[in-house]
């Protein structure tokens, strides 16, 4: 009987020491390598559309690569972000939310920024130049390409499915797949902050 008590106590102390982990809702990247570089000049007259990821050290950065003509997936994702942000409560300092257009043909940095802000005033958006886009796709090992006739206004853009999360140390930590509930996104971000 006494040994049962001792084992139970041991088990609880193991919990306290962090031997038992709570799973993440997003996909954990292992090893959590430093995030690739992301440097976007933005619009000259709109400094808020300029992005330098390495200058955001100390903050959790939530990133999505989409396009503003996206009717379904991008707005669903940004709505989930908005609900996650609300779930985090009043204090969401320390978290930056950045929507990066991968459709520079149609989106200016200002377009992408206005689009992102529709979902939450704290969200920021920008768009790369063609050269910046090519570089960021290579650096992040991701793809984005127009489908349909890009000479018409109605082409769509294939783009990465996941929300990318960079932690305060600048490590690319999580990929949050579409469909993860806003509360669960909030839970992951709360742990990283």
């Amino acid at each position, binding site marked *: 009987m006494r040994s049962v008590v001792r084992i139970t106590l041991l088990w609880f102390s193991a919990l306290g020491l962090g031997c038992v982990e709570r799973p993440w809702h997003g996909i954990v990247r292992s090893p959590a390598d430093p995030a690739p570089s992301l440097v976007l000049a933005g619009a000259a007259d709109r400094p808020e559309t300029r992005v330098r990821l390495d200058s955001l050290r100390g903050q959790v950065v939530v990133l999505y690569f989409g396009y503003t003509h996206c*009717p*379904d997936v991008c*707005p669903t994702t940004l709505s989930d972000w908005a609900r996650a942000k609300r779930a985090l409560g009043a204090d969401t300092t320390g978290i930056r939310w950045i929507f990066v257009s991968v459709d520079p043909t149609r989106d200016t940095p200002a377009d992408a920024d206005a689009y992102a802000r529709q979902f939450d005033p704290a969200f920021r958006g920008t768009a790369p130049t063609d050269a910046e886009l090519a570089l960021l796709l290579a650096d992040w090992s*991701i793809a984005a390409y127009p489908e349909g006739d890009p000479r018409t206004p*109605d082409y769509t853009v*294939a*783009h*990465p*499915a996941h929300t990318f999360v960079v932690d305060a140390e600048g490590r690319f930590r999580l990929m949050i797949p579409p469909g993860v509930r806003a509360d669960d996104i909030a839970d992951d971000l709360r742990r990283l902050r």
Partner: protein
Amino acid sequence: MTSRTIYAACASGLIFLGAACGGAEQATPEGRPTTPTDSVASPSAMTSPGLTAVEPWARPADAGKNTAVYVQLESALPEGDSLTGVRSEAAERTELHESVMEGEMMRMRPVAGFALPAGGRLELRPMGAHVMLLRLRDPLVPGDTVAVTFEFASGRSLVVRAGVRTP
């Protein structure tokens, strides 16, 4: 009745199933010709029993941009049908689409039709099947409604007024 029949009807420009008031309206296979300039403001829906649109809604979006309309279509019919067309005056083009995740990519593809099983349900929802409104004529803001006509292979049609809201 086949989709070719519907196509012929559309091509002739004689039949336009405009919007009607309040929620979902049901339409007969026969249709009723109206002017091509028909709009939300001049309702002319036709009805036939057995089709219901549950909780239609559309996302807000700026003029010139694209958006999606979602709804659950419910059939009380003894035979299966398929949704083969969508029309709306709110946009330059209206298409049936499906968002698909391929590997780590999200893509969107136009779809010719979606099955509506006998007595069953067809769900258009975020990140899945949706009505895509391309190049909105006017901005859609929360509180607006947008009329969409759903056309079925049987010749039935259903006019749905979707409320604009954020999810």
